[in-house]
């Protein structure tokens, strides 16, 4: 896979692209995540049929504060791609990609649990690892390591 194909297929969604250590990272807007993922999965030349991972980052003190990262894999072409979506601290909400990959279900729940990022249209957005009554989101940088 090369950047040209990506440019041709999803060029209008890409905000930034970077390539280092044989890994391609694309950045896009949160509005475009669902249509972008659909294309990535369904397009014959890309065929990212496996969602390896979906996780969140707390970039503070940078703005925008949050980042949702999707690591994709294609069984057919054996290539990988990383999609990053920045989210504002005031409104950390993004569309769920469950319609594209079922695998996102628990991964998004974990992301919600750990960072407080909300996924719209997620069928079951509850805390998954921490108890339901837990206060705070531990992977945020302002959450103390100990002594809470």
């Amino acid at each position, binding site marked *: 896979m090369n950047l040209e194909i990506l440019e041709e297929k999803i060029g209008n969604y890409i905000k930034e692209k970077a390539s280092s250590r044989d890994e391609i990272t694309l950045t896009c807007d949160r509005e475009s995540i669902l249509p972008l993922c659909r294309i990535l999965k369904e397009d014959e030349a890309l065929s990212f049929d*496996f969602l390896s991972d979906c996780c969140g980052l707390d970039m503070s003190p940078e703005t925008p504060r949050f980042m949702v990262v999707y690591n994709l894999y294609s069984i057919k072409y054996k290539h990988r791609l990383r999609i990053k979506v920045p989210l504002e601290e005031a409104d950390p909400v993004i569309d769920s990609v469950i319609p594209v990959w079922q695998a996102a279900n628990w991964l998004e729940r974990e992301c919600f649990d750990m960072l407080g990022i909300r996924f719209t249209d997620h069928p079951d957005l509850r805390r*998954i690892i921490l108890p339901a009554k837990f206060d705070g989101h531990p992977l945020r940088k302002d959450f103390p390591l100990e002594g809470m």
Partner: protein
Amino acid sequence: MTEESITLNLGPHHPSTHGVLRVQLELDGEIVVDAQPDVGFLHRGLEKLSEHRTYQQILVLTDRLDYLAAMSNNFGYVLAVEKLLEIEVPKRAQYIRVALVELQRIASHLFWLGTHAHDLGAMTPLFYMLREREDIMDIFDGISGARLTPSFMRFGGLAADADPDFVKKTKKLLDGFSGKVDDYERLLTENPMWKSRTQGVGMMSTEEALNTGISGPMIRATGLEWDLRKSNPYSSYEDFDFEIPTGIRGDVYDCYRVRVKEMRESARIVSQAIDGLPENDGSPIKAKVVKFPEGEVYHSIESPRGELGFYIVSAGGKSPFRLRVRPPSFVNLQGLNKMVKGRLLSDAVAIIGMIDIVLAEVDR
């Protein structure tokens, strides 16, 4: 759901949930109407902790992820950091790593097979499996000083070079191994009761499994020939000759066959790695790491349970800015609900066994 359905809490302490998994079962008589897994009882905040520990210290934490395959966790983490550092590993170190990790795969699969057979009521196989696993643990003990939590890998190599004793012990293990696997298969493979308990239970199509994110032996049991060791080789896996065993229907039986065949293939890889072990050419077996550069990497390996990925974001400091573990059993466990629905309670136990979860890895 009928009016008479009862809610049964399977776990968090139950003999066959392999740790602290809790599954909320909705039962209509013996039939499972709904199954909601509840995880997190073993959460130790590994990802948070990693942000406050140095890269070297985190290696020790990775041992505690999947304690049945600690070598593999070390391996995955070390490879990800090496990708970040962009350093080459000496060929000899790569081969020893492969040998260790494949031994670990055998040990992990042995333990799985034993406990899984025990879940289905066959109590004897477990003890035979443990006997062989103990030999592998001995080898680890000899080379690293620890059985379960070796922390043996280092960035750019290994903590120590392999001694002749390691080679001797491993060769001895491999000599009798194939015959022993034959023995296990004689106990189970053609046993009509084993077949009736496992065939047609927990079936899944390849598309469905792929969409659910299932990886490792479970997806190979559905017939997809996908193994990261072959498709995206790392650490000289391209040098070795091995097959990817696959199943057809993706049921518990196929999964069992796949794992047993994988043990044989792993034994082949180990013997190739030991036989073809390059001489120590005087270059140090591990690299000296001074500074960790900025950047982000994702590297995944084929752990005994599936795709084990490490996503590291570095801001250039001594600790990673963010370390994310992609745990295979966590994602595989998502498929439980789909597979269990409409089956009997006994099948639920078989299916939980098939997924081969290690709760320490699920909860991190």
